[in-house]
């Protein structure tokens, strides 16, 4: 993987193993007043790492019923967002040629909309991706 190609909207990566392109969006990186309601990645989570998390989610097919991908790093031990977020979401892109993008999410802060489905969380626990404690915290909106 390289450092991505600069575009007006962000750094473009890919295509990855499944042919998907990924945009590390400036809107979720820069502290622009226009984007103050968007969640922001921690600077320690580099755009390349962000792309890596997306690729892991894509490879493992961590998807919900609407086609969104959900990601995490180190079993949720890595903090991904500036407000303590430990999960991230990659919303479904209806046009297959459009690049995907993603952002940190917090079920604790924003409830159901920021939480992956229970079945996916159970799959993560069963596969040893996250601990049972982390799984229950997501399901109980405490992560």
């Amino acid at each position, binding site marked *: 993987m390289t450092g991505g190609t600069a575009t007006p909207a962000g750094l473009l990566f890919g295509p990855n193993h499944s042919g998907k392109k990924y945009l590390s969006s400036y809107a979720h990186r820069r502290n622009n007043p226009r984007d103050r309601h968007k969640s922001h990645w921690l600077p320690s989570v580099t755009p390349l790492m962000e792309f890596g998390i997306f690729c892991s989610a894509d490879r493992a097919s961590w998807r919900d019923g609407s086609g969104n991908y959900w990601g995490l790093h180190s079993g949720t031990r890595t903090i991904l967002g500036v407000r303590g977020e430990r999960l991230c979401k990659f919303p479904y892109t209806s046009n297959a040629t459009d690049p995907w993008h993603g952002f940190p999410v917090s079920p604790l802060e924003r*409830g159901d909309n920021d939480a992956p489905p229970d079945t996916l969380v159970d799959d993560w626990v069963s596969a040893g991706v996250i601990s049972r404690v982390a799984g*229950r915290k997501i399901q*109980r909106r405490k992560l």
Partner: protein
Amino acid sequence: MNFVKLFIPGNFEDAYLYKGQLLMLTEDRTIHVYELERVVELLNAQYPDLRPVPELMFLRNDWLVSSQFGSLMQNQDVARAVLGAFRRCDKRLLELNNGMFEPRVQNLEVPARVLLDVMLYNDRMYVGADTGLYDFDVDFRVYAAEALSRPTKRSDARCLQTAARFGAVSASCGDDGLFTAVDDFGVLSYEGRSEMRKVADVSLKSAWMRHDLVNYSTFTTPLLLQSTYERDYGGRLAPDRTVITHIGSYGIDLSYLLQTLRDARGVTLEDIQYVYNSDTMMFVHTWSEDFYSLGIRNPERGEPSVHSAKTYKGTGTRILSAAQSKVGVVVETDNRVLLLADDEWLPVEESEVISVRTFPRSRRFQNVVALTKEDGLLLVALFDEAPFTQLEKK
């Protein structure tokens, strides 16, 4: 502050102390019930040098604040012996020998993939699950309580949290909303369970503020739902003496209470990370790592107001949940559980947990915290020895 810890290994989802019994929900959808009197007998046999601490801490917290206990502790020899036993226990992890400990095991017949919350009120167990809210009555008159009926489904929506008091029950169901039922025990109507009614569009949790219910559509946006109530002359809901007849007749956005922090301390609403309320207090944690306790006056008529405010240093990390105990506020953070007592944060447990429960309205377990962990249940009993240390030295 003394911490006495009892660990019970197992794959538990949650636990509750009620009427002298410990009820634990397991991963395989069973309820394990232990008589705490039996647990204390076993602890006394296993740790004879720690008597009477297990009994005072895990069975009869009410004795610690009784006039009889205070009177006995006036005797210097008694004070030294009792405080000595507490210090021998402090921060020690008590465990019951395997094989000594046989719970009553019952199936939890709740058809759910995920158990999200549990609570006991007026001998009825409420279980929040991904498939809805369920309840069933439990017989606590027998040795090791047993369910009296199969669960009744009360709502279809995924129930994150439930709260019950004054004969009413609430179910916080995330984006599906907040549902409530009043007179759930037929005190006024002499009918059975009443239908649940939606009173708010979004709810992550709710908490009582005296007779009113505070709904949190996010963990930082409290909305007070005012209630009406009548006196319960029959005493069927003891210790509650009133029955709520309607919830949500009027809603008040309590953000204005938080604005007092902006006016007095420059705290913006965006800076607030977590809010929690009890009957008379509101606790606010900020991203700037301050923790505020606001004394709240909630009159019968009119709007609540702040009558006092106190600032503490924050926890240094996010607060995920908070619960009141007799000796202070217990907060769950990302990686540990802390107690705010005597103006300082004391570590209760140095690991992440599945759930934190306290029992401030119980008679016998006001000082106990039940922590469900990855590998078992940790009961932590808290004892503030400060009022007695002078008696020991006099």
